[in-house]
């Protein structure tokens, strides 16, 4: 059900983009898919039981593509962990939705008028 809602939302986003109406739904789509991928791949491992304890191949390599379907359920579970970090974390996306879409007041910023090199890190 959650997967179907996310799929239809993504389809609607594509129609919007085709119509020249980009919106913050892009953030919503990535946010939703990160969570969905993590939940489904985590559930897959637990549902499999013994097979879920295994892994296909730990050889280090730089894949040309993310081989989502050919690899094992364990790979899908671990790879999905990156979905909420890469290309804008889910936390940053939630801020974008809250502040730019809903118009909620932003976090109080202490770094706006401070040169980056002078910020405490």
């Amino acid at each position, binding site marked *: 059900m959650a997967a179907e809602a996310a799929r239809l939302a993504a389809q609607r986003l594509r129609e919007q983009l085709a119509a020249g109406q980009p919106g913050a739904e892009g953030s919503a789509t990535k946010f939703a898919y990160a969570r969905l991928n*993590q939940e489904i791949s*985590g559930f897959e*491992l*637990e549902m499999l*039981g*013994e097979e*879920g*304890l*295994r*892994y*296909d*191949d*730990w050889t280090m390599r730089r894949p040309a593509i993310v081989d989502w379907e050919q690899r094992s359920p*364990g790979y899908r*579970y*671990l790879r999905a*962990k*990156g979905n*909420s*970090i890469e290309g804008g*974390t*889910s*936390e940053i996306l*939630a*801020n974008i939705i809250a502040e730019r879409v809903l118009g909620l007041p932003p*976090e109080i*910023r*202490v*770094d706006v008028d*401070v040169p980056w090199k002078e*910020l*405490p*890190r």
Partner: protein
Amino acid sequence: MTLLYSDVEEELRSAVRRLLAERAPWTAVLARVDGDEAYDRALWRALAADIGCAGLAVPEKLGGSGASWREAAVVAEEVGRAVAPVPHLGAALATAALLAAVDDDPDDDGLLAAMAAGDTTAVLVLSLSTPPAAPVPASVSAVGDALTGVVTGVADPLAADVLVVPTFDGLWAVDARDAELTPLTTLDLTRRLCDVAFAAAPARRLAGPAAVVPAWQAALRVGAALLAAEQLGIASWCLDATVAHLKTRRQFGRPVGSYQGLKHRLAELWVAVTQARAVARYAAGCVADDSPDAAVAAAVAQAHCSPVAVRAAEECMQMHGGIGFTWEHPAHLYVKRAKSAAIALGTAERHRAALAALVDLPS
């Protein structure tokens, strides 16, 4: 029954934590994951024999130290905290099975005493994913004093001297060299699994047919309680590491931990870990006392602690951001161990189903 830790347990914890911090820091665990020798035998010897962890639950007259599974659970917490490469769970399962089978009358050629002293490592031949209330598997059978058959996905046999094998005919001891071990490629590289095959392997009968079912059930129950303690340890480490990171890591000129979005998630995680500690302690206490509530307590502990450990490890990875997703940061060791532990001895779902039957909910 107290749910607090005794002074003796705190001393035991300190000793184990000190040893693991010195001999199994996460960098050493990671190096072993990349290497050929999965287990640190010297470390296991120090833990099992020198500190005496292997014999905690074994009565003194059977060669142990006469403590209980409560103390053993404290050790399991620390093993979880360190994701230590030791066969703690496999050995505890074998000990639980043997203790239930021999009762007060050991007819085992001193195997239990050797295990309790840490001189011999025995591991129970049981598929790690075995759910609660599963029957004794029929995949290994005895002809005379020889065993034939296969059990898949067994935890820790690579570290074993002796394999303890339950069949319909009894509980058997097989020299690990007489079994064929096929190591599996596993999600969690800190607890290795093997397929274990016997081809007319010479075996010694430790107990007869009447003892098998009680031994099997005791192993599953004690295993569930100890695994819950291990999951508590995993969750505690992940929470502590994440809190420490969020206090020091700054973004937009502020400590990351000052943002409510993250702060509240960690506060909720702390609440869940607090509850995990209580249910894990109760389960350990129940199996230690052989309480009538032990089966319920073990099911509650697994149903609660499995998802808490997974959530803590996943939040640890997420809140560390990019660095948390790299091989060079320990978060992945905990995510893999937590997820595998959630499947081990039955998922939370299976334990909820077992719990429903135990408390007479209509099926």
